[in-house]
């Protein structure tokens, strides 16, 4: 079974802080994704990566950056946290082509005060 592990289940930070969310997958998948999930809005793609050191913007990249230095690890960075970034953040990985399913971690519930 695919395992995607997110480093924190719950995180509380202050406005203006730089925040790091970490994600690790154990299936040697090329593709990794970061989403945020908000009530009534569903899952929205922030960034994705199709290879080490490669990244592509998703639908809502503003205020975020990412890092993928190793194949198994994909980090999401909030450069200067703001209250509107309070959300559930989900990491996913996927093998091969886009018509394969993504596999998700258990999420990080991030609160920005």
């Amino acid at each position: 079974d695919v395992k995607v592990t997110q480093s924190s289940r719950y995180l509380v930070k202050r406005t203006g802080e730089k925040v790091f969310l970490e994600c690790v997958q154990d299936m040697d998948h090329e593709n990794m994704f970061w989403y945020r999930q908000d009530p009534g809005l569903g899952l929205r793609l922030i960034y994705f990566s199709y290879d080490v050191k490669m990244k592509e913007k998703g639908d809502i990249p503003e205020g975020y950056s990412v890092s993928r230095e190793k194949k198994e690890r994909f980090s999401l960075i909030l450069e200067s946290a703001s209250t509107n970034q309070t959300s559930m953040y989900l990491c996913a990985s996927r093998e091969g082509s886009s018509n394969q399913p993504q596999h998700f971690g258990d999420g990080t519930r991030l609160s920005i005060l």
Partner: protein
Amino acid sequence: EDQVTQSPEALRLQEGESSSLNCSYTVSGLRGLFWYRQDPGKGPEFLFTLYSAGEEKEKERLKATLTKKESFLHITAPKPEDSATYLCAVCYGGATNKLIFGTGTLLAVQP
């Protein structure tokens, strides 16, 4: 506009009362439709992939079907442990493949 719509938003069933959840889509070039189950405070758990109209997949009390415009997730004789939010997602497009998630159906099965 490319869109994925799930209905109903919420559904309450008695244990053993079968029903169906709907995922309708308006996209060009469907490449795959995915169903997920999400428990409160957890990430989505993959259930099924459907690739072409007429295809069906089954797992325990769940059966997913696909037409050219929609997919159904049929739940037969549900149990309380089937309570969760069910999400569908559609992969579509040609050179630049996209994935859109619906907002989900919250299913509650009462004993």
